[in-house]
Every structure is written in C-alpha cells, then in structure tokens.
C-alpha cells in the first residue's frame, strides 16, 4: 500500500465503503410476505402484506374486503324482518348479538318498548352468544400458538351453548329470534334449568382453559409483552371491547350506555387488565366469559313473567327519523345508524362493526415484531372476517 498516494488510498477506501453500503442496502431490502388471504391465522380471508427483514416485520398492511357482502347496501332494498335475518351473518359467531342493536334502533324510531320479559331474554341470549363466541376465541388462541388440543375443548363446550340457543330459537348459528317489539316466541319448558347446567359446564371449561393454556408458562412467554397497545393508542385507533379493556380502560357499553336491556338489573363486574399485551387480552376475555355465565345465571333466576311481544302493527313501517344504537358485542362496540324515510325498509344503514376498527391497528402494532408474534397478536386482537368486511 505504501506505493499508493494518499489520494488513491482514499479513493480505494471510498470505493469499498460505497460498495459496502450497496451490499448493506441489498441485505436489508427485506422480503415481502403475503400472510393471507388464505392462511390459517386469518380465520377467513384477511390478507396482510408484510415486509420482513429476516423474521422481523418492517411494515404490515392489512388488506380487507375479500369477503365483502355489501350488507349496508343490501339493507336498503330489504324489509325490516328480512334485514334481521341478514345481519345475523355479520359476526357469525355471535349472531344474536348482531340483531339486538338493529332492533333497538328500529324500536327507538317506532317508539316501542319491548316488555321486560323480552328484554331479559334478549340479554340472556346476548350473553349466550358472547359465550359461544369467546369460547371459540379461547381455544383458537391456543391453536394459533400451537396448542391444538385447546380448540377441540372449545368446540366441545361451545356445542352445549349452541344447543341451548337452538332449543329456544330453532337456529344454531343464525337464530333470527329478535323482533321489533319483542321476541319470536317464548322459551320452551325446561330451558332455564338446562341452561343453568350448561353455564356450570362453561365455567368448568374456563377453568380447564386456564390450566391448559392460560397458566402455561410457554403460553405466557409467548404472549406477555407481545403486541402492547397503550390505552391512548388504542383510543386513537378506535379499539373497543376486550381489546381496550385489556389496555386498562374501564369502558363497557353494557354498563355505560342506556339500552333497555337487563344488564342494569344484575350484579356483575367489568374486567380490565393494565398491561395491554396479548396475554392481557386473553385474560380479559377469559374473565368475561366467566362473568357472562354469572350474568346469565342471575338473569335466569330473576326472569320476570309476562308477555314477550309489545303491540306492533303487522306490517312494519318505521317512521322517518334517524337513530344510533350501539351495544357491547363480544368483539367490541357494534352499532347501527339507522335512517328511515317511513318505508318498509330503511333508507340507509351504517353498520359500525368492532373488528373493522380493531384490525385497523395492525400496521401500528405489528411494526418491529417477529413473524410468530404476528400470529399471536392477530389471534389476540380477535376478529371475525364477516365482521370486518360486512
């Protein structure tokens, strides 16, 4: 090297450095990995485009709409009873809970109030559909992390709940049980006692899940501190439901809004968790399932006697007006903004579904995590495809 001038040396070093930088850029260019639209972790057809650096996610972008069924538009050309059966299919795991806010909005415009017995039964079914939904989450979360057994237990015990829903409404998945002004029909004989024993089974299931998955150390290492969402960010993205309660916000529409449903009559607790990570979301949902069984038990005990249907005209026409009703669905806040012009069907319905907002945080929360954690976080955010795409 001694024969080189300083200038030559510098040029050489500069050349090396430039080359190094090129190499560096080539190395960190990343790889685009399409998670979905058909991928086991997306429970449906959600597509997440991730750019990876090794196993680390640089950026992630959810692409929705693969299951868009146009419900908002469809409601404009259907009558109210027909819409009721359609919106069952939005969040298909807790169909009954989809019906309630819509019916409540229509009732508000018509100035009808369902009799107390109907409200209580509505609340019972609302909580039953919450249980049917979240039991599946509890198992699903296990299976996403590799504990396949959990999901079979979930299906096993969810079956009991579905049987109860079917026994009263006739439909396992799509009850179509709610009516403007009340309910389709009253409960069959023996249903109350049977449901109580099912609730005990669900509580056993929760205990089982807790020992099998919730307290498993491997599960905790996989979920604790993963996908932490601080409460301000959660609020900014419009998260709701258990996702925001797991970030420490004590907010539950069952308690905080003035729906005529019967939650106010019973004694229960809103569970929150300060951590905001995936484990917190799992834990909050587990506790909520337990709490829901207790709510159902209390409601069954205090079920008032009486009619289940208010006086409603045979042909339902909703007077002109606008109404917004939101309820605390299993996945979060679900609401309908109903605009009526006095026809057989609504003029316009805006459906606010919880999963759509819950999934919007994905680009933020997935930044910088590892690929396996993508699955953990997606599972813990818990979305239903029909609920995202509508």
């Amino acid at each position, binding site marked *: 090297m001694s024969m080189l001038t300083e200038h030559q040396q510098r040029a050489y070093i500069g050349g090396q450095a430039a080359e190094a930088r090129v190499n560096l850029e080539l190395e960190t260019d990343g790889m685009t990995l399409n998670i979905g639209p058909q991928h086991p972790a997306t429970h449906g057809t959600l597509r997440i485009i991730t750019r990876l650096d090794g196993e680390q996610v640089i950026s992630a972008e959810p692409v929705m709409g693969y299951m868009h069924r146009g419900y908002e538009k469809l409601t404009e050309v259907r009558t109210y009873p027909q819409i009721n*059966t359609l919106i069952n299919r939005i969040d298909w795991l807790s169909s009954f809970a989809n019906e309630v806010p819509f019916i409540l909005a229509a009732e508000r415009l018509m100035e009808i109030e369902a009799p107390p017995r109907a409200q209580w039964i509505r609340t019972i079914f609302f909580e039953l559909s919450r249980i049917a939904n979240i039991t599946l989450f509890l198992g699903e979360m296990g299976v996403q992390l590799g504990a396949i*057994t959990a999901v079979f237990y979930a299906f096993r015990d969810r079956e009991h709940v579905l049987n109860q829903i079917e026994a009263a409404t006739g439909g396992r998945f799509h009850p179509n049980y709610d009516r403007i002004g009340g309910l389709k*029909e009253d409960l069959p004989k023996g249903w109350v006692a049977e449901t109580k024993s099912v609730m005990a089974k669900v509580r056993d299931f929760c205990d089982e899940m807790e020992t099998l998955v919730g307290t*498993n*150390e491997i599960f905790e290492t996989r979920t604790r501190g993963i996908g932490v969402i601080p409460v301000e960010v959660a609020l900014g993205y419009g998260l709701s439901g258990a996702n925001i309660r797991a970030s420490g916000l004590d907010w539950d529409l069952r308690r905080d809004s003035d729906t005529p449903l019967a939650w106010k009559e019973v004694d229960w607790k809103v569970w929150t968790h300060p951590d905001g990570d995936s484990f917190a979301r799992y834990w909050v949902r587990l506790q909520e399932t337990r709490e829901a069984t207790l709510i159902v038990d209390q409601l069954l005990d205090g079920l008032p006697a009486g009619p*289940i249907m208010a006086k409603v005209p045979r042909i339902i026409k909703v007077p002109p007006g606008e109404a917004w009703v939101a309820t605390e669905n299993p996945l979060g806040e679900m609401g309908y903004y109903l605009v009526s012009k006095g026809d057989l069907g609504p003029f316009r319905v805006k459906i606010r579904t919880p999963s759509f907002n819950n999934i919007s945080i994905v680009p933020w929360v997935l930044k910088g995590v590892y690929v396996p954690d993508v699955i953990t976080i997606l599972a813990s955010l818990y979305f239903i495809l029909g609920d995202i795409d509508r």
Partner: protein
Amino acid sequence: MPELPGLMKGLNVTLRTMLRPAVTTQYPHVKEAPPSRARGVIALKEENCTVCMLCARQCPVWCIYIEGHKTKAPPRRAGGKPRTVQLLDRFDIDYSLCMYCGICVEVCPFDALFWSPEYEYSEPHIADLLHDKDRLGQWMEAVPEPEPLEAGAVAKKK
C-alpha cells in the same frame, strides 16, 4: 422460562380428558335428535294454502316459487254460492338458496307452512334440492307438536 407447575397442570388436563369417554357422536350410526324447534325443513300443508304469495314475497332470497289457479268450490253452507278458491299448481322451495330464516313460516297467515327438525335430505345434485309440493307435503309427518312453554310465559293467541 418454564417452571414446572403450570406445565404439569396442563399435562394433567389432557390426561384426564383421555381417560374420560369421548363426546363424539358417530353420526350415521348414532343420531342426535335435534330440538323440536330446530329449523330443519319446511313442510307444506297444501289444504291450508290459499296461494296468497305472502311467503314468496317476503322470502329474503325469493326461493319460493308458487303458481296457482282459481277454481270454484262447493259452498260451505247448503244453499250458499259456490266459493272461489285458489288451488296450488306449483309450490317449490329451493333449499339450495333458502337460508332457513323462517320468515315464510312466520308470515303465512293461514298456517300452511311449518318447520320440521328433519335434516337428512342432502342430495348429490344441487337441482334435487328443489322440493316440490308433494315432497314438501311429505314433511308434514315430521312436524312436531308445539312444545309447552317455560314458566312465566304468556301463551300466544292466534
């Protein structure tokens, strides 16, 4: 990192489940009876149907096809005028479209449609899922009596 207790308890859960009998029902050999309210298949009571078309119009997916014609029936009371009645020519439900919502059964003002919990009518060809009025009439046998209601209920007057 892993401590024993949580992991061991998990093992215990699976072992216990293994030693308990499984919940599986061996379907074609053993059948579970669906509850009597289950919406399995729609049965048609042809005598009651007046071809009012309400069900066909209210069906959200319009999968009921009805045709009928008017005819004279003998008077109800002796000496009365002959009545005009509608007779069904065709009453088809396309179960490949039906979403089992139950609206048709509910809106029928003349009690001509009923739910039956019967569910074994799957077909290898989708076109065979179109049940005509004879087939729908046969399901009437499988329609259960309405169940008694839970305590505190007010029976519906109809």
